[in-house]
């Protein structure tokens, strides 16, 4: 033997444009004879052994686990030992490609994840082709045997077996080992066992909205734990509308905190960042009637009870399906509350035209704490800011849970805006409550935070 022989990935059947190298049988450079097994290939239908077409010294151009296109050079047979790569390259133009000798064998019982199990042999079914399918077979030079496991073959069935255009453009040339590969299609047996559900319009919109930020690929996540303390007792005491929910209080504190973190209340567009001047909190809810984002406009300007009432009205509107588009659009920051479902950790997805979303997880029943997660678009802000925001929010919430379990006389004076009691104010290193007389002459108390901001 005087020339170098290329051993190409054989075409096993029309549909297998990708082959998986599952075993290499000889050490590189080993002397082989005709019929020596060189390597094993697997398509999604079968496994084959590639044998040496003649005598020589084998050089492998692939590794176990490689996906190779049909026609790619898998290995070379050199006339003498001690060949060099440079030699091959020089000679590659002159090589006469010899397809590997293929021995078919039963698929390995332990199937690789990349190659789904081959269905058990079923009685042979002669596929029936529609007129359009027959024409397409002819047009694409496809072998009808490719559909031997199908009952009826339509044009769409034929098209589904055609490689996508991206793969078609990759010409398998000698020396090129890796190309863009198509994930093998689902085995026909499995395809028949699928119930297809069309994406609802709502889901399509949702995907579009979430895709916008997530596609940037730079969404990051920070989380923190909030100790419950007497938070539930505080909420039960102060709440008029949703006495069992953490959500109103979290939203109340988040909205006010966002004023100090404008980057979390903005979005990226092209090469610029937009920061919203207003804070409209969106609440992602799904109570069985589809995922909706309820908008609480200017949430940072509302007192706790006002905010809670508005949220309650929005939830009622959601349940009664009477929400207007205005009540669903235009949020600048989203909060998603899955605490009712006992989840420990949430990794929420950032909505379109926003830069962050806050997730509320369920209470850990042993440790009496719950997790807050903040997912944010790293292109708009960075971890430090997100962490600072979460830290402040945690402190605010824990402050509300720092009072006594049951109210006593000492808890009576409360801030008229955030309903914080004196003990809670003390726990947050506050300076007590100020007497306030509004323009209508009404008297109330207000805490320092509510008066001056954080």
């Amino acid at each position, binding site marked *: 033997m005087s020339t170098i022989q290329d051993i190409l990935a054989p075409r096993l059947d029309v549909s297998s444009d990708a082959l998986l190298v599952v075993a290499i049988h000889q050490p590189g450079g080993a002397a082989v004879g005709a019929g020596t097994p060189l390597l094993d290939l697997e398509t999604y239908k079968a496994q084959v052994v590639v044998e040496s077409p003649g005598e020589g010294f084998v050089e492998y151009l692939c590794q176990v686990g490689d996906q190779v296109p049909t026609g790619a050079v898998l290995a070379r047979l050199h006339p003498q030992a001690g060949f060099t790569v440079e030699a091959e390259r020089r000679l590659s133009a002159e090589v006469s490609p010899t397809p590997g000798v293929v021995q078919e064998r039963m698929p390995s019982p332990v199937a690789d994840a990349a190659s789904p199990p081959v269905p058990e042999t079923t009685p042979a079914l002669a596929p029936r082709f529609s007129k359009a399918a027959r024409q397409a077979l002819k047009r694409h030079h496809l072998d009808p045997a490719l559909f031997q496991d199908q009952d009826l073959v339509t044009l769409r069935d034929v098209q589904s077996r055609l490689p996508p255009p991206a793969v078609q453009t990759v010409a398998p040339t000698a020396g090129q080992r890796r190309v863009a590969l198509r994930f093998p299609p689902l085995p026909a047996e499995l395809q028949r066992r699928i119930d297809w559900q*069309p994406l609802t319009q709502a889901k399509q919109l949702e995907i579009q909205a979430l895709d916008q930020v997530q596609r940037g690929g730079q969404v990051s996540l920070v989380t923190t734990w909030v100790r419950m303390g007497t938070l539930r007792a505080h909420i039960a005491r102060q709440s008029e509308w949703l006495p069992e929910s953490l959500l109103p209080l979290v939203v109340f504190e988040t909205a006010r905190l966002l004023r100090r973190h404008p980057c979390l209340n903005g979005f990226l567009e092209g090469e610029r960042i937009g920061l919203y001047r207003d804070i409209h909190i969106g609440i992602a809810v799904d109570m069985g009637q589809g995922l909706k984002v309820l908008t609480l406009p200017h949430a940072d300007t509302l007192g706790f009870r006002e905010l809670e009432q508005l949220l309650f009205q929005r939830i009622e509107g959601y349940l009664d399906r009477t929400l207007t588009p205005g009540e669903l659009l235009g949020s600048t920051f989203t909060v998603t509350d899955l605490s009712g479902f006992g989840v420990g950790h949430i990794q929420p997805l950032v909505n379109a035209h926003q830069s962050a979303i806050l997730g509320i997880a369920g209470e850990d029943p042993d440790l009496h704490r719950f997790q807050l997660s903040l997912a944010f678009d790293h292109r708009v802000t960075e971890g430090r800011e997100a962490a600072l925001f979460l830290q402040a929010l945690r402190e605010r919430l824990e402050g509300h849970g720092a009072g006594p379990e049951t109210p006593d006389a000492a808890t009576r004076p409360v801030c008229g805006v955030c309903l914080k009691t004196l003990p809670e104010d003390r726990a947050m290193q506050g300076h007590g409550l100020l007497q306030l007389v509004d323009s209508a002459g009404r008297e109330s108390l207000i805490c320092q935070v509510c008066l001056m901001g954080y």
Partner: protein
Amino acid sequence: MDAAVVRQALLIRRVEETLLELFSQGRLNGTVHTCIGQELSAVAFARALVEQDVVVSGHRCHGHFLALTGDLDGLLAEMLGKVTGVCGGIGSSQHLFHQGRFFSNGIQGGMVPVAAGLALARKLRGVPGIGVAFIGDGTLGQGILYETLNLVARWRIPLLIVCEDNRYAQSTPREATLAGTIEARPAAFGIETFVSDTWDWPRLDAQAARSVAHVRATGTPALHVVRTDRLAPHSKGDDTRDAAELDAARARDLLTAHARAHPEQHGQWRAAIDREIRDLLGRIAQEPVLMLEEYHRKPRVSPRLPARRPVLPSSERLVTRLNRCFAELLAEHPEVVLLGEDIVDPYGGAFKVTRGLATAHPDRVLATPISEAAITGLANGLALAGMRPIVEIMFGDFVTLAMDQLINHAAKFHRMYNGQIGCPLILRTPMGGYRGYGPTHSQTLDKFLLGIDTLRVVALNAFTDPAGLYRALLAPGQQDPAIVIENKTLYGARIGDFQEENFIVEETIEPFPLTHIRPLHSAPEVTLVAYGGIASIAAGVLGPLFEQHDLKAELLIPSLLCPLDPRAILEAVERSGSLFVVEEGSAFAAWGAELIATIQERLGRRRPFSAHRIAALPVPIPAPRDLERQVLVEARRIIRDVVAHRP
């Protein structure tokens, strides 16, 4: 008049006078037709009857009911709508029932063939007992009466028809609407006629006994005319009769005469009766009314779909299978009776379904006169008596003639008599065209049968064994009537014959199977639904739809149209998202519309789908071959419409 007669007549009168009072006090819902003045007629015939006899009546039935059954408590409770009434309060005044011996209904003349059927059942079983049907002179305008007179005379059915002639049809005097004489009518059919009146008790009593004895002894029908006066209005406050005429009537009323002649005795009896009525009303007032849950429950349907099995083609033609099936049923069930026009040998029915059956069972395969209404009514009576009549209406187009018996009788009895009796009539009829029979012998009138509550509608098709369907309908425990829509083009079809490579024919394993023709493995892209004869045409498009139009379609063929079980179709449409209903009749207000509405209600929110009806054009069906096919649905049109609206 002996005391018992007066007291019974007086009881009837006081009950009805009390009912009128209750009505004016607003304590009675609905209407009341009283027989005040006519009571002695009811009393006279009741005295002549025995336990095995059966009585039917019409809207003016309280007297007949009380005279026969004596169930005053049950009647009063019924009138007040109480659950303890003879029909649970459902029927009220015009719809009374008592222990299989008394039936009334509010349709003029409709109960006469039913009484004939009740009497015929006694005759067929060889048990004693005659039928008595009370009608008024107003009923003489109804055609079904004459159909029945002809039938009972020709078939020698022991039925006594009592015509209480009060000379008024509601407010119209008899002279204005009746030609000829009453007596000449039965005479034309060779029916023995008796005449008496309520003003001469001894003669009425004797004639009633004589006429009953005649029917009982000869086994032949008779008609008894009882001249009488209705002293009260037809219903309430609708009396336009002359005052002098009413005065004359009151003057000859025997109860009024008795009160005059024996004031003390009459007064005591009257007081005793009034006390009894008052006490009963007091007690009945405390009784409950029927709750909706007791009257109607939404049927529970298991969410699990029945299992399926493949349909194997048979070499037997459907008509042969039907013939064999009826031969088996006649042999197995002595209660089965086949009735219809031209169904006996040598003709064996217009479509030869009953060929040879009359020869084997001459007593239970009966050729009827051309009287669709009366034979259906007769079969209703047979069914009420526990027989299992199967009526053949020669062409589906003629079912309109039997509609009153289907809607107002068969479909009502079980429920309006509060479940005390069933009427499992089976009526089979071939619908459909493609035979060039023209506008009145080619129709698919299914839509008119589908809207009858409680009436079950089954349609044969070329993929389901018809014997299984008839056996399911004849299963014990059936209470409501059923219609089986056959199809002229089906009779020659071979059952389960379907040859399309890589398609499979399956059916659900249940009493009324649904056939599913689908690709062997592939998920169908469109769902076709068809029933009856046209299902075969629809099945024929599956191949071309695939071959020529690159479309994988499935076809579902229900055999039970009503009540509709949408589960299998629902599942198919949920998968394909595309529903085409193929119907042989026109689309408006037909089964396809109902199916689409049902699927929409169940699926609409979850899964959007498209729905289309492919049906006959809304015109009379023309006779010329090509034009008929264009008006009806042909394969070409199904393919065109499916392709045009494919998803």
